[in-house]
């Protein structure tokens, strides 16, 4: 089944898709299982991706990007999700989406030269630090503080579940520059690895996304130059919300890409597997199950592409973005579960890919704003 380009992708996007597919097949897939087991992928993958121009597709040419726009990055996100390791896709994705996004949108020229350009070259790994042990969904309720002292901020607090947290060279950190206020008290600071008082408490053990490094960070009287603040003091909340837009579309696209891989895997497994004298794909119940999975995937894909289309057109479609993120990530979980079921006992075994998909998919409705938070956004947009 094909639907050339979905009225969204042109010839060049499809040509770029072939390039990314080749890269994924040759350089990621063969190692995915090993990296998942090691709970780490080689740092060299960042410069390798940079060499292929994958880390700066949306970013300006003057900082080393290619200014190609969100549709090319959308292609990259979908295809990376098929590499067999959600952790690799997440570790690389965090680099070119959430951690560098705020630098690009809100950074000064000097900040972009210091952090964005080396991140696009794959020389510096970036992370985004918002979530804290005591506040995740409730961004306005963050507790990490940054007290002004001359031309520095003094940061105190901790962050958790931070993707690339252990290996990062800089973290774009959400802090309260005015703890007496809620969202108006928030600012974003870029904190560099090696700054005194910035430490990594531990690398966290996870259900899925195992090849990505997820860290717990702590800050104790950590002095960060005021020059490292992105935009105005107190603008943090709106910057974070602005950054969530692409993160959520990115997660929806990743879910669509992964679900595609899951469905193809289920089709080929059920074709090969024989029971009661025929391949299990020949039972009508299996054929219908697969057809329903394809239908669910297509529906989620369409909604995701709708949000993407609006975004590419310059519109911040809050509700559609939230809907796409919720629908696509939940769809991916269901497809992974159904595909696992179709594998029978093999689905429960670590040697088959479907279990990894099943574990990796589960993060979708949690990270980048939970499904419940997406529903809350939709309700608000409906004026409810």
């Amino acid at each position, binding site marked *: *089944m*094909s639907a050339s380009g979905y009225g969204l992708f042109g*010839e*060049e996007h499809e*040509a*770029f898709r*072939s*390039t990314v597919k*080749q*890269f994924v097949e040759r350089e990621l897939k063969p190692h995915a299982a090993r990296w998942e087991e090691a709970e780490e992928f080689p740092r060299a993958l960042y410069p390798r991706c940079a060499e*292929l*121009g994958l880390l700066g*597709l949306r970013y300006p040419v003057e900082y080393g990007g*290619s200014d*190609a726009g969100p549709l*090319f990055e959308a292609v990259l996100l979908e295809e990376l999700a098929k590499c067999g390791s959600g952790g690799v896709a997440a570790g690389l994705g965090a680099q070119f989406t959430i951690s560098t996004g705020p630098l690009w949108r809100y950074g000064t020229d000097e900040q972009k030269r210091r952090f964005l350009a080396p991140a696009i070259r794959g020389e510096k790994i970036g992370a985004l630090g918002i979530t804290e042990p005591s506040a995740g969904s409730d961004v306005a309720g963050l507790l990490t503080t940054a007290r002004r002292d001359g031309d520095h901020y003094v940061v105190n607090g901790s962050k958790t579940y931070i993707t690339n947290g252990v290996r990062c060279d800089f973290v774009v950190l959400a802090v309260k520059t005015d703890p007496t206020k809620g969202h108006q008290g928030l600012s974003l600071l870029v904190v560099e690895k090696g700054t005194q008082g910035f430490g990594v408490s531990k690398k966290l053990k996870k259900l899925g996304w195992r090849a990505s490094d997820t860290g717990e960070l702590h800050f104790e009287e950590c002095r960060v130059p005021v020059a490292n603040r992105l935009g105005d003091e107190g603008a943090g909340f709106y910057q974070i919300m602005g950054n969530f837009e692409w993160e959520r579309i990115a997660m929806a696209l990743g879910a669509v890409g992964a679900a595609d891989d899951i469905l193809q895997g289920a089709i080929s497994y059920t074709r090969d597997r024989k029971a009661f004298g025929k391949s299990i794909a020949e039972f009508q119940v299996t054929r219908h199950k697969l057809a329903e999975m394809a239908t669910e995937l297509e529906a989620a894909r369409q909604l995701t592409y709708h949000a993407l289309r609006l975004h590419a057109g310059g519109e911040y479609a809050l509700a559609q973005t939230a809907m796409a993120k919720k629908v696509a990530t939940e769809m991916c979980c269901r497809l992974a579960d159904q595909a696992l079921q179709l594998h029978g006992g093999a689905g429960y075994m670590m040697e088959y890919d479907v279990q990894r998909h099943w574990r990796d998919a589960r993060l979708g409705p949690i990270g980048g704003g939970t499904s419940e938070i997406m529903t809350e956004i939709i309700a608000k947009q409906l004026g409810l």
Partner: protein
Amino acid sequence: MKILVTAKRVEDPESKIKVDAAGKGIVKDGLKYKINPFDEIAVEEALRLAAKHPGDVVAVSIGGKEVHEQLRHALAMGATKAVWVNHEGPLDQMGVARLLQKIVEKEKPDLVILGKQSIDDDQNQVGQYLAEWLGWGQATFASKADSLDSENEKNKVPGVIVGDGAKTVDVIREVDGGLNRLRLTLPAVVTTDLRLNQPRYASLPGIMKAKSKPLEEQTAQGLGVDVAPKITVTKLSMPPARKAGIKVPDVATLVTKLKTEAKVV
């Protein structure tokens, strides 16, 4: 040095191939296509040579408008110009070689690099016909001594070596039992084997530039070539499904079976 390469459109080997009801062709619905992998190796080799011996790399493809996709791919990899021979309908290997001969006569390359075969029909004939009809030397199944994991391969060192003054090329051929080294006087025809190189990816800047590179159209009629096939396909069938294997308890049984039943040792 000017090099001409081919970029045939073939069914993606990942696609599920089915023979059609008439038994003379395959079901085209839902198939994916790509550049013949051996041709992609030819494009890569030409680009490596052109980096050392500057000159145009011209990619040729024969078929309907859809072959633009494979030509654009070659251009995105770095070829400088594309020639599209607009042709619908059946074509045998001699027809292809006749068309290429005309294009070669027009373009006057110093070297023609083709895949040793295309992965759809696996005929392995076009390079040989072409060399014969041009009256040029040929080296088929070009390979190299270095492995695809070697430093030379990482540094994109060509496997085909151009001699002083660009009068000759040295080619290592993969043959049964070893490597065969040939020196050809240019112009010449080379066909590629699998281990000649690892083709580069088409980069995003390459993909964008490909849009504005020249793509010239030709037709069989315009080239004055009679492409009426001399070979027709009478029947196409799927290979018989392989029988399930058996497990043997030990090596001794295996050897006995290989000797007495399979009769291969």
